[in-house]
């Protein structure tokens, strides 16, 4: 093999070596990221998680509805108790539509309770009061005596709270959200029922965003 052939081979080898260096993500762990994984709250995560999504809403409200219907104050009540929903408080880092939790919980209870509970529509109070005044003043017809107070009083208040914990490191982001709901007796202020649901999620973004 003469000098030029050697040169040729060395050139091929050198070029191949350089082209083999095409992997720009050498030294970067999980360059494509790690897909978000839902885990049991008691499971040890490899990082930390992400936000509140529809599947969380569904699973949490399903669990709460089942739980509420099983308590004696509801299951064995002679007269269906009246419940007022109070807006949930969001203590997490995720902005949410707060009404959606109580709306789904109410619809679940209404569809599964078979008349075991009734809900009072306090969101409509201003409209209802205006209507009653119209009836009292005779501007509109009334099917019953409008001077008799018939607006129902609450037996229980149902509300909830969302609390969260976040961890963010170079290994990823993790979020734990605790959904707690409680039913408070309007007469005694006693909490007659309380339950929680927990969701933990974690993920690592694509290296292009880290």
């Amino acid at each position, binding site marked *: 093999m*003469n*000098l*030029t*052939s050697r*040169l*040729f081979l*060395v*050139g*091929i080898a*050198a*070029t191949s070596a*350089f*082209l083999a*260096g*095409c*992997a*720009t*993500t*050498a*030294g*970067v762990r999980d*360059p*494509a*990221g*790690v*897909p*978000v994984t839902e885990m049991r709250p008691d499971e040890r995560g490899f990082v930390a998680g*992400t*936000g509140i999504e529809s599947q969380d809403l569904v699973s949490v409200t399903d669990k709460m509805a089942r739980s509420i219907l099983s308590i004696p104050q509801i299951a064995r009540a002679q007269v269906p108790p009246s419940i007022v929903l109070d807006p949930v*408080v*969001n*203590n*997490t*880092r*995720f*902005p*949410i539509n*707060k009404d959606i939790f109580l709306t789904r919980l109410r619809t679940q209870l209404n569809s599964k309770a078979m008349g075991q509970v009734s809900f009072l529509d306090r969101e409509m109070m201003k409209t209802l009061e205006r209507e009653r005044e119209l009836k009292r003043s005779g501007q509109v017809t009334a099917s019953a005596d409008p001077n008799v107070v018939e607006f129902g009083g609450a037996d229980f208040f149902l509300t909830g709270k969302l609390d969260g914990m*976040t961890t*963010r*490191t*170079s290994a*990823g*982001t993790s979020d734990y959200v605790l959904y707690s709901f409680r039913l408070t007796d309007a007469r005694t202020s006693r909490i007659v029922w309380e339950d929680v649901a927990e969701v933990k999620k974690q*993920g*690592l*973004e*694509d*290296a*292009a*965003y*880290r």
Partner: protein
Amino acid sequence: MRALFSMTWSSITAQSPSGKTRRVSGGIFVAGPAGGHAHPRGRGWILPAALSAAVLLAGCATGVVPAQRSGADASGSRTTRGLTVADRRVQSIAERDRVLFNYRTAALALRNGEYDLAKEKLDDAIVRIGGIITNDAEAARARSLFTAESNKPFIGEPYERVMAYYYRGILYWRDGQPDNARACFRSGQVIDSDPGQQGYDADYVLLDYLDGLASAKLNTDGGDAFRRAQQRLGEQRALPPYVEDANVLVFAEFGYGPRKYAAGEYGQQLRFYIDDSPTHSARLVLEGGKLIVPLPGYDDLGHQATTRGNRVMDHILGNKAFFKSSTSVAGDVALAGAVIANDQARRRERQGKDGDDANYAAVGLGLLGMIGKVASAATQTQADTRQWDNLPQRLSFAAVKLPAGEHRGRLEFLDRTGTVLERRSQPVTLSVTPDGRDTVVFLSELKR
């Protein structure tokens, strides 16, 4: 043949981002024997090789495909079928730039008092920036050698994402949802956490201060958040204590935010240019000067942009730059070898010896050299400098208690020494609602 190689070589060197032209053998790459000294076998070999090289080069010359616009084109492409006029208007923005468009539009809408539009754009952006982006094909391509970083869907650097949450938080508070506003401020602080640079972890003063204020308004303890905010501000300045019955929340911003640029030999380093604004603080003068609300700059986006440390993407771009540099050098070496081999072939032929081997080596090395140079030229090392370019430099806040009704006054901007910048003053009218809900006022020095 010589002309072909010469032209090709010139076109390759012309693509070098450094602008330097390296020449071999007097500026002309001689691929094979010249004139009557050419060996018949060598000449027959060179032509197909040259054509192959030309085809190869032509294939590589496409470079980066320009950002694809998915909107209507002149031919009425299939992407526009079935879309309404409104759909087409929205889709005229490349999907990868959608968040950037939302950011800019939201900031402008907020300054113009178009709060519903601002909410819509910020919500759309937050859906994208709030998740964990994995297995995204465009992001994967952005990491590859021959695609620029700017091909990935834009979500912005942390200071830009924080501002999306900050603005959305203001709007939530304006809608009477301080807990969702607090959620936004907390998300902003999480985005700013774990920087590559020590000592700058989640260090926005206002995000913590507002977190605590929202908690106080919700009848929970905001003390921890207040203490964190005070710690981030430093001992020399004191944050105003929370006034829980303050019903007017004034959010102010002034100066122009940081600008991105690409530095380094191959533009692989993302850097920020900060033009310090003359406006260092502001004040709200109400009731004919009887009430003066100070609005000091608590957070500086220039500081936030430059204290994040290196990104993982910087490492990837560094690798790309190394590859670009290495393949260029390898190409130079191979081309130099080709020249040497060619000289040797000609010398052997002059001596009446067989120069075939040397000719083949010259051609082979020439091809390898060109492959190296093309690979180098096609490597896209530039850092992504797309930016939310209508951000402010400094953020401020004040909470005051005012009776319901209209309050007229002016917003004054002050320089470093506390002197009023008269030409920047703006008249202000605050309408305080009597419904007990906080009145949120957003004031900006920026017009667009």
